[in-house]
């Protein structure tokens, strides 16, 4: 090595050392104890506000990280412990999977706090094959309902009335839809659930301990199979059409080409903006009440809170502070949902949210056990096969096949 090379080597080493020293000091500065929260974009502002209020009263710091909602669940399993969140926002139907993966920690809110929540919201976040534990603090509830354009149709009180009104509207003009409910190629078991439950179908039964039993599948239950021929009738008369996907359903309703739309509170603003006069009701009972799936959103403490030595702080924020009526009001309003806390619920003024609340009566929380992953595509697929117009499969056959497939997958 000649002199030039020696100088160069020295320079390289010196520069590298300086940069590394700076990086090292930055690394050390990050180590101050802070609570990391993963939230979706809709709730970011509200979460930041609530978390900061709490942090100020407790003398700690929070770091709110925005992620896409679904990614919160998926990334929690793969994130490196150092970057992992201590608290996440999540949907109740993630509970089983996250708990089975060992990624979330059980919570023990005070008895007085728990009293302020409807039992189903707490059950929705509870999971355990042996001992049932609460894993989430419910914050907001949501469900779909039947949105009626009151200028185009009368608000039906019975199923027969709805069927008549919807078909009459459809025949008025080509391009009109009877009931706009989204399915598409791969189906949508969530939006079809009112029709499914209305015919006596269910997803998982419960065992004697009151837990969901993945071996008791009601996709082709006796009650449903008995009335399945009604689905074939709906398909024939075009009451429900699998070829309507999310975009088609929405644009049809907004353009006045559908008087009935099965959707949730996330579309309230869209309908208001289109200047449509509407009311929200539960789909009228078919042979049984046509109840929707209930969704509960809330906050969970991850297993990483203990790793980061902030578990006490995380539990305090989630099981204590976020369950108070004040925090619930803020967090639920953030994305236009009804708060889970009943005390907070009393202060809700939005008439449409109240109507969606009424449409939830008798509803069934989406099963939160991990086996639910095997259900969505098959149940949605059965609806598509039975309601795709000409060439459709008989409903009783399609749902029996789906039931078999689900049982096979769960094993």
């Amino acid at each position, binding site marked *: *090595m000649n002199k*030039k090379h020696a100088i*160069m*080597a020295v320079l*390289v080493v010196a*520069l*590298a050392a300086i*940069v*590394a020293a700076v*990086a*090292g000091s930055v*690394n050390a500065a990050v180590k101050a*104890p802070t609570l990391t929260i993963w939230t979706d974009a809709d709730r970011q502002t509200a979460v930041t506000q609530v978390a900061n209020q709490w942090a100020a009263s*407790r*003398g700690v710091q929070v770091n709110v990280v925005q992620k896409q909602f679904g990614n919160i669940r998926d990334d929690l399993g793969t994130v490196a412990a150092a970057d992992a969140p201590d608290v996440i926002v999540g949907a109740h139907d993630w509970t089983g999977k996250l*708990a*089975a*993966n*060992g990624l979330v920690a*059980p919570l*023990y809110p*005070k*008895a*007085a706090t728990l009293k302020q929540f409807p039992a189903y919201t707490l059950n929705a976040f509870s999971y355990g*094959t*042996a*001992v049932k*534990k609460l894993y989430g603090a419910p914050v907001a509830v949501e469900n779909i309902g039947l949105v009626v354009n009151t200028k185009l149709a009368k608000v039906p009180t019975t199923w027969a009335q709805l069927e008549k009104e919807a078909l009459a509207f459809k025949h008025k003009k080509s391009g009109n839809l009877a009931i706009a409910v989204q399915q598409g*190629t*791969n189906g949508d078991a969530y939006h079809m659930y009112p029709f499914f439950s209305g015919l006596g179908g269910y997803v998982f039964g419960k065992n004697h301990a009151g837990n969901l039993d993945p071996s008791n599948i009601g996709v082709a239950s006796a009650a449903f199979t008995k009335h399945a021929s009604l689905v074939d009738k709906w398909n024939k008369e075009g009451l429900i059409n*699998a*070829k*309507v*996907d999310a975009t*088609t359903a929405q644009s049809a309703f907004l353009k006045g080409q559908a008087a009935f739309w099965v959707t949730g509170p996330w579309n309230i603003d869209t309908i208001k903006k289109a200047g449509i006069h509407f009311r929200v009701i539960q789909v009228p009972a078919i042979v049984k009440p046509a109840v929707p799936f209930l969704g509960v959103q809330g906050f969970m403490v991850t*297993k990483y809170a203990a790793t980061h*030595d902030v578990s*006490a*702080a995380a539990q305090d924020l989630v*099981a*204590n502070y976020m369950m108070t009526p004040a925090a619930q009001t803020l967090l639920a309003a953030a994305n236009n949902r009804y708060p889970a806390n009943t005390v907070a619920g009393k202060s809700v003024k939005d008439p449409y949210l109240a109507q969606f609340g009424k449409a939830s009566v008798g509803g069934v929380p989406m099963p939160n056990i*991990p*086996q639910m*992953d*095997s259900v*969505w*595509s*098959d149940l949605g697929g059965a609806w*598509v*096969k039975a309601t*795709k*117009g000409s*060439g459709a499969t008989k409903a009783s056959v399609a749902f029996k*096949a789906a039931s*078999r*497939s689900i049982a*096979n*997958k*769960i*094993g």
Partner: protein
Amino acid sequence: MNAHVVTAPAVPPARTFRPAWSARAIAAFSGTTGLAVKIVLLSLSNALAAWAGFVLADKGKWPALGVLVLATATLDWIYLSKRTLPLKFLAPGVVFLVGFQIVPILYTINVAFTNYSTGHVISKPDAIQQIKLVSLEAPPSARQYTMAPARDHGGKLVLILREDATGNGYVGTKEGLTPLPAGSVKAGALGIVSAPADYKLVKGAALFGLDAQLQDFTVPTDGDSAIRPQGITEAVELRPTLRYDAKRDVFTRISDGKVFHDNGRGSFVSGKEELEPGWKTYIGASNFRSIASNPLVRAPFLRVFAWTIFFATATVFLSFAIGLFLAIALDKQGMRFQRIYRSILVLPYAIPGFLSILVWAGLLNDDFGVVNRTFHLSVPWLFDANWAKVACILVSVWLTVPYFFLVAMGALQSIPAELIEAARVDGGGPWQRFRRVTLPLLLVATAPLLIASFAFNFNNFNVIYLLTGGGPAQGGSNVAGATDILISYTYKLAIAAGKGNDYGLATAVSIIIFLIVATISGIAFWRTKTLEEIR
């Protein structure tokens, strides 16, 4: 011809000598500027390595640190030594090859031999910890307390407790519960606000410094039951339902004495009962065996495989044929608006595939799509198994044609006009000229691209997932829909297996796919070589 060779040295005098840009670039890097650039770049790479080294050392990843040091030292040697000129050009490529190809492949192979799936995500020690935590239950007469950590006169950590139901005050230590004088413990909205003077409440940020101690702090009550702090203002009485014996590595259920032992596949089991969560561990070739034996995986495999081959082959050949046809059609000299035509034809290539595929899905909607409505058709494009396949090929051809149009256009220019002229002189018709001269020459140039395109379409997840989502669903217990290709089927296996995700099985399938694609491409390249020899 000869005349041309003779006149060649007579370069127009106005044009001064300018070496190729590559030669100039090399020259620039040899001077002082080059030296400075080199020092800065090398320093940056070393600094990056040093920073990464700190992080790795911090997390105790010693093997990775060793690799990092070795790699950095090698890079420094390559660029500081005078004898390593070829390596200087090779090194960056090798770095990227290792980083973006070899490491992911090794990782995939590694995962394929594990049980990584729902319920098997964390490590075994974490799983044991988690099982202990979730198997706690509230005894029938469980009491809840408002709690505040405090220091006694000796500075020892204790819990000041106020029972929610009765308002009685206690002090809890690791030995047990001691009552405090009535009314001496007061609670407010934020927890306990006052305690007897003997105890100093821990407040503010200091509270959170106690986290690790609070996690393990238990105040024993009756039998197994103990009061455990939850958060910083609450404590609850809980008792374990399972006991872990570290020596035997088993969990025993307290109620019935049932013993759960490590089944070697990442779970504690007793008969059919399994404790959640399990952990991630190596399970040998189990995933590969289940591809062969699990009817859920095996049944659709051949059907999906056949469709994948057909889809990729049809896409490549149709696109190539159409692209070539268009290129020849627009190759005519002196055609008007030639550039405009060419630009329009390349447009699909310029629009992001994600968008155009979604637009196609809307256009092809059976009842409401533009295609059926405009042409007054009622073709079930997306809802019939066979038509959905046609739709997939249609869209992927639409997306691929511009590529082959560009390739064919370029390749046509490179075919010497003399050869075609010679064929014409020899009396060959247009078809014969194309078939005997243009096409063989074109194929020599484009065959590797055809193979690459085949490999790409073999794994063209976007078209399938965004257009049909693999649907329409097939009967029976099929995870795979009618238009699922191997990679989208693998994805479904990975996300919608019995209990949610099964990454281990999905990676095993993707390794099989890799082997299939590698074999087909290998054979194809070998055939191409023969083609070149014929030339």
